[in-house]
C-alpha cells in the first residue's frame, strides 16, 4: 500500500477527511480489504488515545437527562421494542403485539443488512464504472491525438504529392518542348540535305508546264511534281532523267503518267547509282520508257 493511501487512512481514522475526499476514500476502502483492516487498526489506536486522558465523571444530572431523552425518543417513535420501564405494564398487556414487532424488527434488520450489501455492490460497481469511464476517456483522447497526427501526415503527403505533380507536369512540358526543338532541328537538317530543282522548257508547247524535283541525295530518291503539262500521244510517255557528270549518259528515273489536267506527283528512284544529280530532264519517249534518251527533251533544270 502506498504512502498516499496510508496518509488518507490516518486522516480518515482521525476524522480529518471531509466531503468529497471522505466519500472517495470510503469508495476505495469498500473494495480494498487491506485498507479496511488498516483503517480499523488506526481507528482503534486513535480511540485508545482517549483513554490516556484523565477520566472525568460527568455531572450526575447528565445521565438522567440522557436516559430521559432515550425514553422520550422511543415514546415518539411509536412504541417499538425500546419502551420505557414505566410503560412495560402496557407492553405486557400487548405481548403478542410486541412479539410481532420483534419478528418485524428482525426481518427489518435482515432486510437492512441485505440492502447494505446491495448498496456496497452498487457502490463497487459505480467505482468500477467510473474507472472504466476514465480509461475510455483516456483511450479516446489517445485516438483523437493519433487521428490529428494522421491528418497532419496526410496533409503533408498531399502537399508533397501536389508538388511532385507540378514537377512532373513541368518535366513533361520541358520534354515536349525539347522534342519539338529536336523535330525542328531534324527537319531543318533534312531540308538542308534536300535538292530542289525547277525544270523549264524552251519548247512553246511545254512552256506553260511546271515541273519541280525534290532530290534526297542520301536516300538516292526523289519526288517529281508536274502541273499543266500538255497531253501527249497515247503511244508515248513522259520519262524523267537524272544527269550525272560522272555518268556519260543520263540515268533513267522512270516514266510519268499525267492526268487529264496535266498533273502528276510521283516518287522516283534512278535505275543506276547517281553520284551527283547535276540536272533533271523530262523527255517524251515511247510508251513504257526507254533505257537511253531517244525522244525530245521537253523540260530541263537549269
Amino acid at each position, binding site marked *: 500500500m502506498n504512502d498516499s493511501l496510508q496518509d488518507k487512512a490516518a486522516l480518515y481514522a482521525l*476524522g480529518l477527511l471531509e466531503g468529497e475526499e471522505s466519500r472517495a476514500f470510503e469508495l476505495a476502502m469498500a473494495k480494498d480489504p487491506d485498507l479496511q483492516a488498516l483503517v480499523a487498526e488506526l481507528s482503534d489506536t486513535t480511540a*485508545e*488515545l482517549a483513554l490516556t486522558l484523565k477520566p472525568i465523571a460527568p455531572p450526575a444530572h447528565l445521565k438522567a437527562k440522557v436516559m430521559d431523552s432515550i425514553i422520550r425518543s422511543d415514546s415518539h417513535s411509536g412504541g417499538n421494542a425500546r419502551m420505557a420501564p414505566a410503560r412495560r405494564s402496557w407492553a405486557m398487556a400487548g405481548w403478542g403485539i410486541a412479539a410481532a414487532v420483534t419478528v418485524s424488527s428482525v426481518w427489518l434488520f435482515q432486510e437492512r443488512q441485505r440492502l447494505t450489501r446491495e448498496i456496497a455492490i452498487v457502490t463497487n460497481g459505480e467505482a468500477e464504472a467510473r474507472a472504466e469511464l476514465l480509461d475510455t476517456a483516456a483511450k479516446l483522447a489517445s485516438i483523437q491525438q493519433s487521428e490529428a497526427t494522421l491528418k497532419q501526415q496526410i496533409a503533408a503527403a498531399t502537399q508533397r504529392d501536389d508538388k511532385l505533380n507540378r514537377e512532373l507536369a513541368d518535366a513533361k512540358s520541358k520534354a515536349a518542348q525539347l522534342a519539338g526543338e529536336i523535330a525542328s532541328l531534324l527537319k531543318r537538317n533534312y531540308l538542308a540535305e534536300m535538292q530542289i530543282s525547277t525544270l523549264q522548257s524552251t519548247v512553246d508547247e511545254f512552256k506553260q508546264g511546271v515541273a519541280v524535283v525534290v532530290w534526297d541525295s542520301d536516300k538516292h530518291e526523289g519526288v517529281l511534281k508536274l502541273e499543266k503539262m500538255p497531253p501527249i500521244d497515247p503511244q508515248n510517255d513522259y520519262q524523267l532523267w537524272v544527269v550525272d557528270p560522272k555518268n556519260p549518259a543520263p540515268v533513267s528515273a522512270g516514266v510519268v503518267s499525267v492526268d487529264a489536267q496535266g498533273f502528276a506527283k510521283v516518287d522516283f528512284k534512278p535505275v543506276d547509282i547517281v553520284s551527283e544529280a547535276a540536272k533533271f530532264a523530262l523527255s517524251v519517249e515511247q510508251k513504257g520508257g526507254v533505257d537511253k534518251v531517244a525522244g525530245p527533251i521537253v523540260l530541263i533544270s537549269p
Partner: protein
Amino acid sequence: MSTRTPTVQDATDEDLLVRAAGGDQSAFSALYDRFSPPLFALMRQMLGDETEAEDVLQEGFVYVWKHASQFDAARAKPFTWAVMIFRHKAIDRIRARGRRARMEEAAAEMPENLAAAPVSADEAADAVDRVAIVREAVRGLPGEQRRMIELSFLKGLTHHDIASTLAVPLGTVKTNIRRGLLKLRDLVKGGTQ
C-alpha cells in the same frame, strides 16, 4: 446444561451494545457508566467548554441508543465506534465556530499532553494495563508527530489548519500524522516500529 445472561457488570462492551440495540435500558445505562468518563474528558479537552461538552455528551449517547443496531463488531470495537461518533459531533461544533477562531484557540491553549498524564502506582505496577501501554506508546513518539496527533485528536484541527498553525508544509503534516499513528499502532500492539 444451562446458559446464563451475564449481568451488566460482567458483560463485555459488545454485549452491552447489542443488548442496548435490543432496547435494554439497563445495558445502555451500564455502557454509559463505562464510556462517559473518558468521553466526557475528551469532549472537554476538544471543546474547552464544560457546557458544550455536556451537550455533546448527551447528543452522543442519545445517538448511540438510536443507532446501536448499526454497530458492526467486525469493523470496530464498541469504544472505537463511540469515540468516532463523539469526536465527529465535537468536530462539527468546532468547525461551526470558524477556522480562524479554532486555530487561535489551538494556538493559545495547547492541548493537554496525551503522554503527560501522571502514571499511577497501579499502572506502574501492572505492565499490562492498557492505559499505561498507550501512554508509554505516546511518549515514544517523536515530538512533532505527537504534537500533530494531539492537535488533530484533541482539538479537532484539520491537517490544513495544523499546517497553518505550525507553519509547515501540508505534506509534512500528513507524513507526520501517518508515521505517528502507524508507530503508535505498532507500539500499542507491542511490536517494534
